[in-house]
């Protein structure tokens, strides 16, 4: 019985610690994007990037998730995505692109620390993410 209690307590502790860490990023990003969505700024940003995001079958605003996801981390992107009103196919495309290329500042520095070809890996991830987006936009709806 103690083992079961210990098991759940350990999982709960790790959940709590990670949850707090995630919320410190997700909440401010969610709030800022929510405020921006009340102003014309988000739409202006979206209109500006619409021609580029069209290639991935995504609305212009979703570029914000890609930018924040790559420069900050996935949790920043998670603060944006629920506010983009995407369909399943679009969420899946955006997720695959982000899962392939994200947190580039932090993760590239880990690769530098491992003394491996960090710049090659950085470019590889960005190129593969773009290719995945192009392919996903061309397959029939999920």
């Amino acid at each position, binding site marked *: 019985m103690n083992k079961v209690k210990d*098991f*759940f307590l*350990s*999982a*709960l502790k*790790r*959940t709590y610690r*990670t*949850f707090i860490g*995630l*919320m410190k990023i*997700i*909440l401010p990003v*969610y*709030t800022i994007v*929510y405020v921006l969505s*009340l102003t014309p700024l988000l739409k202006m940003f979206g209109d500006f990037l619409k021609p580029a995001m069209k290639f991935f079958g995504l609305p212009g605003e979703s570029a914000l998730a890609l930018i924040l996801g790559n420069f900050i981390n*996935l949790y920043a992107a*998670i*603060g944006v*995505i*629920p*506010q983009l009103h*995407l369909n*399943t196919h679009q*969420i*899946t495309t*955006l*997720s*695959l692109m*982000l*899962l*392939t290329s994200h*947190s580039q500042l*932090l*993760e590239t520095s*880990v*690769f530098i*620390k*491992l*003394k*491996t*070809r960090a710049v*090659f*890996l950085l470019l*590889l*991830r960005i190129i*593969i993410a773009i290719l*995945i987006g192009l392919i*996903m936009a061309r397959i029939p709806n*999920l």
Partner: protein
Amino acid sequence: MIATNYLKGVLSLAGKTFIILFLVFILLEIVQRSGILTKAIKVIGKLIGFVGYKKESSAPLLAGILLGIIYGAGVIDDMIKEQNIDKKQVLLVSIFLAMCHAIIEDTGLFMMLGANFFWITIPRIFLAFLVTFICSKIFI
């Protein structure tokens, strides 16, 4: 109205995130406590040879796949030093992990947002193997 919408959005996102993380860590606790890990390292060691990996690369690879690059960095670095893993193997491990890591947590979080489970797992793992294989033939 604006405030209620905001609060609803925040609470739903926070609630879902907590539930997903709890499920993720239950799964990770099971994996880490059950001794599956040592068996998995052996099995993976035998399976990954065809994409250019040596046996000793399976432990850092599995650490990155489960924990991710940032949380796994310390463990991965230690394993590489302890087992004297050579530069080519470190690059091959890094290529796979660059494309695919923290597979339980990240997959859970993006499923929560509404992504399709099959599409954000299987093609990603397949692509990571494919790119590793190509790189092991061309670049090194």
